[in-house]
């Protein structure tokens, strides 16, 4: 194994497994985002996709021995936190106005 960071024990689990898990997570998230009608569920699915990407970043960072990947993950987590706050606020406002968070029922911006 090449690219191991100094002072860190070699990986017990092969990196390919991480990649498979991340891909699966992403696919599940994507399916959820496209298929679910509840805004909150869609939102959660997107979070799942985002975390799948985070996992990819970390895996590749470890494989390549490059700290930049890890650093980006921190940024993604920070942005995701802010995004969660804004997104949830929008859902609360939507619910107050329409008494529902079903995205198929909130389709006012059309031709």
């Amino acid at each position, binding site marked *: 194994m090449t690219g191991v960071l100094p002072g860190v024990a070699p990986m017990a689990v092969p990196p390919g497994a991480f990649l498979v898990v991340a891909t699966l997570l992403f696919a599940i998230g994507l399916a959820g985002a*496209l298929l679910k009608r509840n805004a909150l569920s869609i939102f959660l699915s997107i979070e799942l996709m985002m975390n799948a990407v985070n996992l990819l970043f970390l895996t590749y960072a470890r494989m390549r021995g490059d700290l930049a990947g890890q650093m980006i993950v921190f940024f993604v987590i920070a942005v995701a936190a802010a995004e969660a706050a804004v997104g949830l606020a929008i859902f609360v406002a939507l619910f107050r106005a329409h008494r529902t968070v079903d995205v198929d029922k909130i389709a*006012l911006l059309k031709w």
Partner: protein
Amino acid sequence: MNQLWLIPFLPLAGFLLNGLVALVASSARAENESGADHPGAPLPYAQRLFHGIVGVGSVGLAAVLSFAALVPYALGSMRAPEGLAPIVQTVYTWMAAGDYTVDVAFRLDALSALMLSFVTFVGTLIHVYSVGYMQKEEGYGRYFSYLNLFMFAMLTLVLADSLPLLFVGWEGVGLCSYLLIGYYYDKDFCAAAGKKAFIANRVGDFGMVLGIFGVFALFGTADFSFVELAKRQVLAGNAPLGVYAVCLLLFLGACGKSAQVPLHVWLPDAMAGPTPVSALIHAATMVTAGVYLVARCSALFVLSPDALTLVAWIGAGTAIFAATIGLAQNDIKKVLAYSTVSQLGYMFLACGVGAFSAGMFHVFTHAFFKACLFLGSGSVIMSMHHEQDMRKMGGLAGRIPQTFRTMLVATLAIAGVFPLAGFFSKDMILGSAAASGHWALYAVGLFTAGLTAFYMFRLVSMTFFGKARGHGHGHGEHAHESPPTMTVPLWILAAFSVVAGLLGVPVALGGSDRIGRFLEASVAHPEIHEMSHGLEIGLMLLSVGVAVTGLAWAWRWYGKAAGPAEAVSPEAQAFHERTGALGRLVANKWNVDEGIEALVLSPFRKIGTFLWRGFDALFIDGIANASAFLVELLGDLLRFFTTGHVRNYALAFTLGFAALVAYVWMS
């Protein structure tokens, strides 16, 4: 002392000062009155005094400077056998392109000295006259600032050492002419007359600009050193045809500015401006710029005899054509306007037969008597309370004796009565035409001289003789003489109308033709034909005889026999009726305006309408509207993709991204 640039720039300073003060004062007045008061009230005395002093002072000072420069030059030049070399002063470099430069340079030579003398002298007198004439008019400050601006442009034109700088002055006088014709801009016909003058001059200026380019193409320079090159016949390119073309183009410019047929139509209409403006711009100075241009380029013109022939015939044609119209006009200023057109034709006739100095001499003398006549007519109009129709005048000789006497002198001068100014200059022209063998041109000129004497004395008779013909207790009975600011310039101009001709007493009469020898250095003198003095004196007697006949005829028809009710004698009435259609045609100015309307303006309007309705509205707008319609149609179809369902968008996004990845993968 010899700072030539000061001469045009003093009036420019006057223009700025008068214009600024008039603007500031009028806006201050507008605030005070807030529109409730009558806006046409005359200016306060102090402000009028200021405008008068600045207006007259700047031009007067320029006149003093000009004479300080030109008198020593002229005297020195007369003494030197070959004349003095021109004085050229460069102020700064205006344009530089490679090793060719156009400078703002001023030139004093025989030709510009002659122009300078009467432009500044007559200009100053007319400024003084304006102080009296315009005192009750609105926009006194505006008037004097425009008049000063005109003097700046005219002096630039006269003193310029290159065609481009001359063109600046040329356009400047055109602008001031437009501004001053439209001085009473709230009257439609004044505004229209201003526009007409401007547009008719555009036609000429189009030729003028191309002519300047042509001079540059022929000689590689546009400053007046090209005259020397032309004299030595140093030409580039296809000389004979090129020279002919350039001469025609320059002459087109001269025709526009100097109101030659068929571009003369603007000058009679220009009488809509105040009378001193007509005197200064449309009689004495600006309209002679075309003659000046031809004389300035005379060395070029003599290289093309065909062009000269054309100049001569256009001039002769204009002279007789305008004179016939002058016979039948009843507006006192219109008679003088057509007289001016006719006299300008004379000047071109002189240039055309190669007698450029005779043409310039006539420019010089004409400035005095025509300015005197116009200013006199202004005095008449003012005493008649703005009545310009001569049929309503009559019997003014006793009421405004000073105006009468000065106008009579000027009339005799323009008619060519010996020994007044007009006799010498007109005779020099006729003599040159005869001496160079152009007997047809001579005959036209002689006949025109008779017509001139006739219509001018008709004017004097209808205005001053007989009995007052105004309505009821007519205007004429209440006529009063003008103030001294107006009569003094009249007397001075009348005096010069008498003596100005003495500069050019011909050799045949024991003189030495000073003006001709003075101008020799500046203008070309192609071939000198000598006539026997006996023949020359015979021709002089003939022309004086023709003039006197014209005068007497007019006296018989309009002076002696005119009754209190009718302006003309029964004989004149009967003659007019006998001429029938021809008479009506002449009275209607040969229908030139209608002809231009039918042949030029109307087709142009039709083309314009076609381009508007057919090309612009249908074709250009059609392209724009059709493309807008297509885009709208496309939008109408595509907008159904905006379903409002977030999940559709997400799916589209995903599929699109997948397609992109697939594409990158493949390639």
